[in-house]
C-alpha cells in the first residue's frame, strides 16, 4: 500500500449533507419506471396461483380479446428464446448440492405461488395487467411442501421429483471437533438447548423491481436497465444465460429505490425482457406490482435453528453446537444456498468459545425462493446466540450484561482466531457494552420494572440486550473460492483529475440509497485537497464503470471505498513525480497537503495540483517516459473481512392484558471502525434497527397450508410506520480495522443484525416472572398474549 501524507483534517468525519439529495427531493431522479421509452412492449407476467401443479393448458383467448394485448406466450413458446438457459445460482456450496433447473418461465410444472407460467405482451401498462389477469391457466394440483420441517419428513412430497429428495445440501463446520464438543457438553455445569424460528420476511424496498431492455436502433447491442444492486454481475450473468456477447451488452441501474439484498439477484424478468427485446428489436419493459413483488421477488430468512451451549459453573461457554434447517424455497436464486453459510461462521457471536460445531441442511419447499435479505445469515446467527446467552444468564443466575462480560473476546485478543476459522480484526466489546448500559440507564429501567411488577401492573417493562459481531467487507476472493462462491470479492475504482482540476471518480460499487457519492467525494477531496463538490462520482452503468462487483454485504466502503482511496494515492504518486520534475526537486523532498506540493524547507517552491493536472493534460513537459493525463485505476481485493460489532439495548413495555408490545427506548452503540460521515452512519443504523425490530414485532410472510401467501400486500404485511418506530439513541466506539488503510468496517447491516434479539430478549425479560421463556417472532399481540397464557397454565 502506498503511504502518503494526509491532508489536513478536513471532510472525513464531518456530518456533511448528501449531494444525492437535491435530485431526489425535487423528483428529478429517474427510477426504472420513470424512463420514457416510446413504443415499448409492456410485459405482464401470469403467475401461478397454485403452490405445486402441472400446467395442463394455457388459454389466452380472453386476454387477446383485450384492446392493446398482442400476444400471450407460454413457457413452452418462450423456451425458444433461451433454449436450455436457466436462471443462475452462483453459489454451489457443496460438490453434491442439488440444483433444479430454473427456467425464467415454467414449462410444465409450477413450483410455487408466484412462479411465472406465461407472459402477455401489450401496448401499455394497463393492457399488460389486464391481459395477465385474463389468461386462464388450467392447473392439475400436486401435493405441496410448505413448512421447512415438513420438507424432510418421511414421505414428504417432492418439490423436484427428478432430484429425488427435498434436501438441497448439508454443509458444516465440524473438523475433528465432535468428540471434544461432546465431552464439553458431558462435563458442562450449564447446558442451554434452544429452538428458534426465523420466519420468512418480505424485503419490501419502497421501489418494487422493474426492468427495461432496449436494443440499439443500429442493431447488435442491448442496454438493460434494471432496478438492481448489481449491474456488473447482472451483465455477466445475462450474457452467459442468453449467449449475448458481453461486449454487446450494457447494464444500467438508474436511481434504485432501496434493495436490502432483494435486488442482488438475476431475475426471470431481466432475462425475459432482454431476450424479447433482442428478438423483437424493440424496447421491452416490466414493472413489478407490490402484491406481485411479495411472491416474485426473493424473501429473506426462513430457518429453524437449534442451538446448544455448554458452559462451566461460572457461565463461561466452552462449546456451541448448532443445527439449522434452512428454507431455499422452490428454486435457487443467485446466492440462495450461501445465505446460511454467512451466518454459519458467527453462531459463537462475539464470545471466546473454543469449540464450535455448525451444520446446516437446506431444503426445498413450494414457496418463493429465499436469498439475501439485509444481514443475510448474520441476523439469524446473532438472534440464536443472543437469545441463548440470555437463557444461560438465567441458568447461571447472573444478569445479561454479566454473562456477556464473562464470555466476550478480550480487547487484547485481537487479531482473534475464531473457532469457526475467521480472523477478527479489532474491537473492544466490553467498552461498547458498558457505554450502552450507561446510555440506556439500565439500572433505572430495572427499578421501574420491579416497581411495576410489585404493584401488579399489567404494563410490564423489559430490558433486552444484543451484543453482535458481523463479518463485512465481502470479501477476500480466495476465501470466497474456498466457500465455492462463483465470483471474487474485489472492487475497482478509477480516479481522474481533469485539466481544470475537477475530479472524476469511477466506482464499481453501486449505490441505492447509501450515499456513495457523498462519501467517496469526501475521501477523495480530503486526499487531494479539493472541494467535495468538485468531485464527481460515476457509477451504476457498465458503459461508464466497466468493472465492479456492486453493493451488498456492507462491502461498499470497506472494499469499494478503499479502492477509491488507493486509486487516489496512485494519482498523488503520479502528480508527485510531475511536481518533482517541475520543481527540479527529488520526490522524497516533496510534501503534499491542501492540494499543493511543496519542497520541504523551501516553502516558496510549490506547485498546486491544478498546475500539475494541466501539465499532465498538455503533456508538453512531463518526465521522460511518463504517460500523459492524471488518472489511476485500482482493483482492490481485501486481505480479510471486517468485523463491525456493538451492543444494542431495547426497552419495551408489554401489556399483559392485550399482549401488545411498545418499543419505548432503543440504545445502540456500534463500532464500525472509522466513520467517514457520521450523519450517514447514523441513518444506516436507524433504518437497520427498525428493519430488525420489524422482524421481532411485526413482519411475517404468512403461508397457509396450501402454500398461499396470505400477507402479500402492505395492508397485511406490516412494514412499520413512523407511529410504531421508537426514537433511537446512538453512541459509537471506533477500533479502526487494520484490514484497510482507512480503518473502516461497514455499517449497512449492523442495526438489522442486532435489533431482533434485543427486542425479543426485552419482551421475554418483561414476562420472565410470569414463566415466559420464549416468544416467537413476530411478537404480535396474539403471540405474546398466548405465550403468557401458556406459561400461566394454558388459560385461554
Amino acid at each position, binding site marked *: 500500500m502506498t503511504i502518503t501524507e494526509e491532508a489536513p483534517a478536513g471532510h472525513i468525519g464531518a456530518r456533511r*449533507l*448528501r449531494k*444525492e*439529495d*437535491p435530485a*431526489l*427531493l*425535487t*423528483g*428529478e*431522479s*429517474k*427510477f426504472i*419506471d*420513470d424512463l*420514457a421509452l416510446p413504443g415499448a412492449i409492456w410485459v405482464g407476467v401470469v403467475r401461478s396461483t397454485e403452490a405445486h401443479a402441472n400446467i395442463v393448458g394455457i388459454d389466452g383467448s380472453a386476454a387477446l380479446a383485450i384492446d392493446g394485448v398482442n400476444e400471450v406466450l407460454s413457457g413452452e413458446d418462450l423456451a425458444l428464446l433461451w433454449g436450455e438457459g436457466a436462471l443462475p445460482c452462483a453459489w454451489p456450496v457443496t460438490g453434491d448440492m442439488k440444483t433444479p433447473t430454473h427456467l425464467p418461465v415454467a414449462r410444465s410444472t409450477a413450483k410455487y405461488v408466484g412462479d411465472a407460467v406465461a407472459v402477455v405482451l401489450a401496448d401499455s*401498462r*394497463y393492457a399488460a395487467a389486464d391481459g395477465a389477469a385474463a389468461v386462464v391457466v388450467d392447473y392439475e394440483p400436486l401435493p405441496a411442501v410448505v413448512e421447512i420441517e415438513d420438507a424432510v419428513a418421511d414421505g414428504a412430497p417432492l418439490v423436484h421429483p427428478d432430484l429425488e429428495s427435498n434436501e438441497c445440501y448439508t454443509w458444516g463446520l465440524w473438523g475433528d471437533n465432535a468428540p471434544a464438543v461432546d465431552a464439553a457438553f458431558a462435563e458442562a455445569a450449564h447446558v442451554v438447548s434452544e429452538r428458534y424460528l426465523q420466519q420468512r420476511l418480505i424485503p*419490501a*424496498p*419502497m*421501489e*418494487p423491481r422493474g426492468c427495461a431492455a432496449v436494443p440499439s436502433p443500429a442493431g447488435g447491442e442491448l442496454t438493460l436497465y434494471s432496478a438492481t444492486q448489481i449491474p456488473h454481475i447482472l451483465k455477466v450473468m445475462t450474457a452467459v444465460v442468453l449467449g449475448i456477447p458481453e461486449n454487446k451488452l450494457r447494464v444500467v441501474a438508474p*436511481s*434504485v*429505490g*432501496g434493495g*436490502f439484498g432483494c435486488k442482488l439477484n438475476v431475475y426471470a424478468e431481466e432475462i425475459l425482457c432482454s431476450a424479447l427485446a433482442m428478438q423483437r428489436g424493440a424496447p421491452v419493459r416490466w414493472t413489478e*406490482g*407490490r*402484491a406481485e413483488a411479495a411472491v416474485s421477488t426473493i424473501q429473506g430468512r426462513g430457518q429453524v435453528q437449534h442451538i446448544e451451549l455448554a458452559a462451566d459453573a461460572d457461565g463461561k461457554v466452552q462449546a456451541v453446537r448448532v443445527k439449522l434447517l434452512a428454507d431455499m424455497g422452490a428454486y435457487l436464486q443467485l446466492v440462495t444456498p450461501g445465505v446460511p453459510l454467512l451466518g454459519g461462521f458467527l453462531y459463537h457471536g462475539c464470545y471466546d468459545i473454543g469449540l464450535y460445531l455448525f451444520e446446516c441442511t437446506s431444503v426445498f419447499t413450494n414457496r418463493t425462493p429465499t436469498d439475501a435479505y439485509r444481514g443475510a445469515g448474520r441476523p439469524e446467527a446473532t438472534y440464536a446466540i443472543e437469545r441463548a446467552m440470555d437463557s444461560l444468564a438465567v441458568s447461571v443466575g447472573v444478569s445479561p450484561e454479566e454473562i456477556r462480560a464473562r464470555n466476550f473476546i478480550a480487547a487484547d485478543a485481537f487479531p482473534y482466531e475464531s473457532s469457526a476459522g475467521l480472523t477478527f480484526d479489532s474491537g473492544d466489546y466490553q467498552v461498547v457494552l458498558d457505554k450502552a448500559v450507561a446510555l440506556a440507564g439500565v439500572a433505572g429501567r430495572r427499578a421501574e420494572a420491579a416497581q411495576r411488577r410489585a404493584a401488579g401492573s399489567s404494563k410490564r417493562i423489559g430490558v433486552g440486550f444484543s451484543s453482535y459481531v458481523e463479518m463485512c467487507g465481502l470479501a477476500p476472493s480466495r476465501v470466497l473460492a474456498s466457500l465455492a462462491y462463483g465470483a471474487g470479492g474485489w472492487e475497482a475504482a478509477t480516479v481522474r483529475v481533469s485539466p481544470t482540476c475537477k475530479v472524476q471518480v469511477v466506482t464499481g460499487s453501486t449505490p*441505492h*440509497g*447509501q*450515499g456513495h457519492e457523498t462519501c467517496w467525494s469526501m475521501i477523495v477531496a480530503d486526499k487531494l485537497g479539493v472541494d467535495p463538490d468538485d468531485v464527481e462520482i460515476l457509477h451504476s452503468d457498465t458503459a461508464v464503470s466497466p468493472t465492479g462487483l456492486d453493493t451488498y454485504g456492507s462491502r461498499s466502503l470497506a472494499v469499494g471505498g478503499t479502492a477509491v482511496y488507493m486509486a487516489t494515492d496512485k494519482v498523488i504518486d503520479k502528480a508527485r513525480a510531475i511536481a518533482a520534475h517541475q520543481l527540479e526537486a527529488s520526490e522524497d523532498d516533496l510534501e503534499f497537503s491542501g492540494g499543493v506540493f511543496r519542497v520541504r524547507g523551501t516553502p516558496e517552491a510549490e506547485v498546486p495540483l491544478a498546475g500539475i493536472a494541466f501539465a499532465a493534460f498538455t503533456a508538453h513537459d512531463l518526465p521522460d517516459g511518463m504517460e500523459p493525463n492524471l488518472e489511476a485505476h485500482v482493483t482492490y481485493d481485501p486481505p480479510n473481512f471486517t468485523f463491525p460489532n456493538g451492543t444494542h439495548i431495547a426497552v419495551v413495555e408489554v401489556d399483559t392484558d392485550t399482549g401488545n408490545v411498545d418499543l419505548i427506548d432503543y440504545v445502540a452503540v456500534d463500532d464500525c471502525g472509522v466513520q467517514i460521515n457520521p*450523519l*450517514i452512519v*447514523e*441513518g*444506516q443504523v*436507524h*433504518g*437497520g*434497527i*427498525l*428493519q430488525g425490530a420489524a422482524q421481532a414485532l411485526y413482519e411475517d410472510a404468512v403461508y397457509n397450508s396450501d402454500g398461499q401467501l396470505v400477507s402479500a*400486500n*402492505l*395492508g397485511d404485511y406490516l*412494514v412499520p*410506520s*413512523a*407511529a410504531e*418506530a421508537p*426514537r*433511537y439513541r446512538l453512541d459509537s466506539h471506533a477500533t479502526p480495522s487494520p484490514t484497510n488503510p482507512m480503518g473502516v468496517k461497514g455499517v449497512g447491516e449492523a*442495526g438489522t443484525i442486532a435489533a431482533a434479539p434485543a427486542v425479543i430478549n426485552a419482551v421475554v425479560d418483561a414476562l420472565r416472572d410470569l414463566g415466559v421463556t420464549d416468544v416467537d417472532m413476530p411478537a404480535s399481540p396474539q403471540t405474546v398474549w398466548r405465550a403468557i397464557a401458556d406459561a400461566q397454565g394454558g388459560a385461554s
Partner: protein
Amino acid sequence: MTAVTLTVNGAERSLEVEPRTLLVHALRDELRLTGTNVGCDSSSCGACTVLVDGQSAKSCTMFAVQADGADITTIEGVADADGTLHPMQQAFHEHHALQCGYCTPGMVMAAISLVEEYPGLDEHGVRHGLEGNLCRCTGYQNIVDAVLAAAGSGGD
C-alpha cells in the same frame, strides 16, 4: 377516453384518459411528471402522495377523472422557480431524512400538508400524521425531526 383538465403545478393541462386511469398514472405517464412514485397497489405506502386542492391525497387512490378541474401540486411544483428548495425539502436535506429517496416525494408532500393543517404539531402528532407514508430506509427519526424543524416546532 374522457377529457380531463387539471391545473398541475400552476399550469393548466388538458388530457384524454380512460375513465379508470389513476391520477398517479395520468401524472406520470401522460404528463411525464415522474417525481410522484408508485410503491404499492393497496393505498398503503403513500409514495404517490400529491396535493389536490391543497390537501394531501394518495394519487393511486383517485381516478384522474375525479380530479377534473382540481388544482394539483406534485413534488416538481414545490421548489421555487429559481431552484430554491421548499422549506420542507430543505429540512429533509439538512436532517438526512432520505436515503434511497423513493418514498421522499410522497413523504414531503404529506408533510407539507400535515404541518399546514395542524400548526404546533409535536413529535407524537408528526409520527401519527405520517403513518400513511412508509419509508424502508431511514427508520423515520430523521424524517420526524425534519418535519418538526420545518414546522418550527423544534426538532434538532
